């Protein structure tokens, strides 16, 4: 019962800083039902926070946006061998 009351209080009294934390969390996990309701309710009364959510999504999109498609690139075997030789040489010099 206490837990339910706490959740209802959250839904009715969510502030912008708490809303921004929930918006950030929503990029990392599904929100709980009361968190989701609280955020949607807050959006009805706040002009700033819906904009912040759009901004966070733009940043998330930019963070995951490859300027070139790198999914299939990797070091060539020649490059790996060069690096291993350079590392061995550097280690020998350091000892």
């Amino acid at each position, binding site marked *: 019962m206490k837990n339910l009351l706490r959740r209802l209080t959250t839904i009715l009294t969510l502030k912008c800083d708490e809303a921004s934390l929930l918006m*950030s969390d929503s990029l990392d996990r599904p929100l709980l039902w009361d968190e989701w309701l609280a955020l949607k309710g807050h959006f009805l009364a706040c002009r700033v926070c819906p904009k912040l959510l759009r901004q966070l999504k733009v940043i998330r999109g930019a963070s995951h946006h490859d300027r070139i498609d790198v999914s299939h690139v990797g070091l060539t075997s020649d490059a790996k061998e060069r690096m291993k030789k*350079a*590392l061995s040489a550097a280690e020998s010099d350091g000892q």
Partner: protein
Amino acid sequence: MEQSLQSSDPFLSMPDSDPEPAKEGVDVAQWVDRFGDSLFRFAMAKIGEATTAEDLVQETFLAAISGKQRFRNDATVSTWLFAILKRKVADHYRRAGRRTEKRAESVESPPVETSRDWDQDPATIYEDREFWETFDRCIEKLPNKLAEVYILREVNQHSPQEIREILNISATNLSMRLQRCRLALRDCLQRNWFVEDE
């Protein structure tokens, strides 16, 4: 107890404040096979030029040699290597920025008329080269603790659970760091790239 990078310098900051005795015979050549491709992909995504990306990855491995004994598992090695590579990429951009400024003194480019509004189609925003320059500068400005979670979450795309295990921090701590990181990026982009709202 939170364990995280405490120094602003990733060469000095270790993710474990109480390391186990050093293991004998850490084979750094194995790092090339284990982490070379993912480091290279990160560098390519940031730089877009294979030769430079390879050079930065090699410099990263060479810089990492001195601290090799302090790492106990792949997760901490990976975190450390990415922290070093991030600095290498940032240094590259700083050098490139200086070159760009010098060129700009002698070559006057016509101003580009662009709409810079958060509400425009993100695909349009991502086509703007200047957006990426600003975005990269904003990431470089992040404090180390925030840059660390940014790289783990958004670049390496580790799950929150994996990041908590890597950094040994609570879910609440991670949640707050990610929030601060995202708000810092938003504020930086707002100041330096997007047009302020009326």
